[in-house]
């Protein structure tokens, strides 16, 4: 026993050092399983308040740009609205509705029910391997984990941590997850992030034979937790992987992650039910 105490006293610093490092690695490992820990994320109250104060100052410098993006979004929404409203019901006996939305062959989403909530971005990063965004809405305002987040121009990410008044979002700019995506003609693929460059995304698994042009749009699918048909990005350049003859598309992301100010958090009220069903089907096998 005496020897043991002497040993501890002699190597106290080394032991303390190793203990702290082990704690760090446990924390890192726990986060990498994507469970997330609410305490050590910028969704906690102190970090949230500090970021909120900073955002209050920075806010005014982006007003002009934000105005422009909101007006553009208004125009887009008005066009979409006009397509569904401008229907001449008196023309024929049967109601003719010509809705020129994307041809959508999946049926689950027809019955999905989306609730939109707006939120202000109080913190944002584009430089790490996994980038997180903090918004000023939390469980008090009805935000829950796994909700989808979009901006006025395109996808942003997924809510992964919620406190009372703040929430952190794992943005699309991360190396952990892929996002299901489709091209205009319905070809599915998965989008990942080309790390290091905050406005380039990569769409993989596209067959070589498929003709893709620069500027083609890439949308979300209903396979993911996003509503279908939300713009992910536009094709910037194409490359064919010689090894396996698969086409890789480099996308210019639709959202400008550098100056994100307002986002919409989307709640799919039927998502839990769908998840439950999918999980139980998996288990039943």
């Amino acid at each position, binding site marked *: 026993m005496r020897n043991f105490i002497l040993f501890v006293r002699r190597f*106290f*610093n080394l032991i*303390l*050092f190793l203990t*702290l*490092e082990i*704690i*760090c*690695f*446990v*924390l*890192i490992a*726990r*986060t990498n399983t994507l469970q997330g*820990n609410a*305490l*050590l*994320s*910028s969704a*906690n109250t*102190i*970090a949230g308040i*500090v*970021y909120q104060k*900073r955002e209050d100052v*920075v806010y005014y410098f982006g007003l002009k740009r934000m105005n422009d993006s909101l007006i553009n979004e208004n125009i887009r929404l008005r066009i979409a609205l006009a397509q569904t409203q401008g229907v001449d019901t008196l023309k024929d006996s049967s109601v003719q509705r010509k809705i020129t939305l994307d041809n959508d062959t999946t049926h689950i989403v027809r019955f999905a029910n989306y609730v939109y909530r707006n939120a202000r971005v109080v913190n944002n*990063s*584009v*430089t*790490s*391997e*996994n980038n*997180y965004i903090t918004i000023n809405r939390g469980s008090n305002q009805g935000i829950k984990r796994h909700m989808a987040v979009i901006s006025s121009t395109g996808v942003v990410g997924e809510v992964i941590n919620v406190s009372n008044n703040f929430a*952190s979002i794992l943005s699309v700019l991360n190396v952990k997850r892929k996002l299901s995506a489709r091209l205009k003609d319905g070809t599915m693929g998965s989008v990942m992030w080309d*790390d*290091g*460059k*905050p406005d380039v995304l990569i769409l993989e698994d596209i067959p070589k034979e498929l003709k893709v042009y620069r500027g083609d749009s890439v949308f979300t699918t209903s396979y993911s937790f996003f509503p279908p048909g939300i713009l992910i990005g536009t094709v910037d350049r194409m490359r064919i992987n010689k090894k396996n003859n698969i086409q890789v598309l480099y996308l210019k992301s639709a959202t400008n992650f*550098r100056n994100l100010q307002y986002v919409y958090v989307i709640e799919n009220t039927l998502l839990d039910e769908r998840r439950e069903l999918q999980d139980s089907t998996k288990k039943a096998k």
Partner: protein
Amino acid sequence: MSDYLKNFLRFCIIILIQVLVLNKITLRWWSQPAGFPVFIPYIYPLFILLLPFETPVWLLLLCGFATGLTMDTFMNTAGIHACATVLIAYLRTNVLSALLPKHLSEYPNQSPGVKNMGWVPFLTYCAFLILIHHSIFFTVELWNFSNIGYLLLKIIASTATSLLFILAYLLLFTKQTALKS
């Protein structure tokens, strides 16, 4: 002002500068076609580097852990900053005693600085520990050795940038009259 208060204030100032200003600056060394990764300069290890000479190792370790965890909270990295900072806190005493001519206990009530170490030893000390910090940080963050060139580029570039910002901090926040003497 007591040493504790002074270091606590310095901790607050450095963390606030890091979180409120530097985290908002995304730098790249040359423009997009080359595809160079963007990064932000980290000056918060400076808090560990500037603690007084006599600080015992266990206190250094705890300070490093606290600093790292604070940064982790703000940047959502859960332990990566803490891991790197604890390592440099552990190595600090050895590096200092290798660089200084006298034993560490012969510098009572002093902190490492340009004034009592001279420019070259102090910069070596900073550069070495910052390099270790950044190597550990980016390696653990990327956790993937398939792209070693990218990793090395990122480490070297951000070490250089962080050192520039640390120099700027030192020139701004130390007494200039004392430096000239």
